[in-house]
């Protein structure tokens, strides 16, 4: 067969472009799931200067009763988790993860590494509208959704 190499290369280029293009456009971006542009899992320490996406409820919530709720158990590809939230008024004062199960140890490590960063983000913005951590997109999305369900239970907006 003549020019077999060229047919293969042409196919490879088309296939690569197709998947890369689909990934760029069609795939659900983190933002579509309530997350902003992701931050990196590799970046050490707490996230720096998160955007203050704080609603009017944040200020008025400084006083009020302390209430606590646990969010729904969220399945994500490598495991499942649920998040518990403590609020005073409309202010989130504490976030914890009472339940975390993963398929294998690598995901466990990753989750344990990422959860403190997610917590810091939530405490900074006082809502579930966090950027998330890139490299742990599924964990971030599950975390955000679980928090949102807990906040819904507490009627915190």
């Amino acid at each position: 067969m003549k020019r077999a190499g060229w047919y293969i290369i042409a196919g490879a280029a088309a296939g690569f472009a197709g998947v890369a293009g689909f990934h760029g456009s069609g795939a659900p971006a983190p933002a579509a799931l309530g997350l902003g542009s992701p931050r990196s899992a590799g970046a050490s320490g707490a996230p720096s200067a998160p955007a203050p996406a704080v609603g009017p409820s944040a200020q008025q919530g400084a006083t009020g009763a302390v209430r606590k709720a646990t969010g729904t158990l969220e399945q994500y590809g490598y495991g499942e988790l649920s998040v518990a939230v403590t609020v005073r008024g409309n202010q989130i004062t504490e976030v914890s993860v009472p339940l975390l199960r993963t398929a294998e140890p690598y995901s466990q490590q990753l989750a344990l590494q990422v959860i403190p960063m997610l917590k810091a983000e939530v405490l900074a913005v006082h809502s579930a509208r966090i950027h998330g951590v890139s490299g742990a997109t599924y964990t971030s999305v599950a975390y955000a959704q679980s928090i949102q369900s807990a906040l819904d239970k507490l009627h915190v907006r």
Partner: protein
Amino acid sequence: MGFDSVVAPGARQGSKQRPAVRRSPRPRPVLARAGLVAAGAGLGMVTALAITDETGGELRAPGGAATFLGSLTGLVGMYLALLMVLLVSRIPAIERVLGQDGLLRWHRRLAPWPISLLVAHALFITAGYAQAARAGLWHQVAVLLTRYPDVLIATVGLGIMCAIGIISLRAIRRRLRRETWWLVHLYMYLALALSFAHVLALGPSFVGHPLTQIVWSVAWAGTAGLVLCYRFGLPVARSLRHRLVVTEVRPEGPGVVSVILSGRHLDKLAIAGGQFFFWRFLTPAMWWQAHPYTMSALPQPPYVRLTVKAVGDHSAAVAKLRPGTRVAVEGPYGAFTKHVQQRPQALLVAAGIGVTALRSLLEDLPRNSAPVVLLRASRPEDLVLRKEVAELVRYRRGRLHELIGTREQATLDERSLPRLVPDLHRRDIYVCGPEGFVTSIVELAARLGVPAEAVHHEAYAL
């Protein structure tokens, strides 16, 4: 015996009363090209999957680079393994264009890649996860094997692949019997099946991506289906339909016999001259192996004929076949047919038992096509089927040259070949015979300026 009509074909063909043999469909190169583009597209897609799934942050994290290389090598390695299976799945449309020896050449050329890439995958992933966990390498191996779903079984699969890779190294393979090696290397199917689960359970491109999971599963299930259909179902169905039985074993020359078989519905069997079948003679000693032998004449329903030279255990046993032995077949295969001819006329060259493919191909060439035929043998008695070939050549107003003697006495080179065939530039060259002979003629043709696409060859390995 009814097959005498093949031995003296002139009379029947003169009356244009050929039995209605169904002709093999014309090969369509566009299908093979589409196949190449699709194969390339798949390679591009798996590479893109591995890359788009990765972010800068993951790469910079501890062990990130190794983990990324691990998923890339794993995906590409598994994909190349899929291609290797497809190459030998006997899809008829592709076989007709590239020929089985062409497909096997690709299969062999590709073989080292999936195994080395998958070994690299295992090493990279272990190293990457160990770095991420800040654990020792051996500790990480234990964790991977015991606590990750489906990794243990995939490791068993990788072990089988490595074992097959090792016995396929030339130095080791030479010491094994061809049949033994071939049977052992079929365990590759098992190895691939064992590795399948961990890809879906753990692969970053698959977990949480139902679309890629579906595409990947369909690709593998489809390939398995093609293998089952064309390597197993179709041959079984054909064998049951035609019910071939050995009718006669007839000596043709020193160590050469023709086996004449009879069967039903042979007029429905689509075949082109020059093609071959895998024959499985259903005797207690031979049923478990199928060997490729060329048909030495087009079928003359209800008869077909193959001609075999005793060079190994199997071909020697063929001479002792009893009439009444049932025979299963797989085929026909091969692109050594009139369909691939590019130029107006043909030069057919055969050495030794290679004359069998030449004989049936010649029968397929039209009247007045004036083929030139060169037969080479070291002794006159080794020129089997020469009477039949001479008659077929005469009927087509062609020329027959017999080159008899040692390689030095009867040599074909840049001077002698153009002298024998002055109109070489108008002719395709078909060459069939032992590997060394075929290679020498192919190289000679290249030196004489015959374009590669006008040179067709079928080598048989001893």
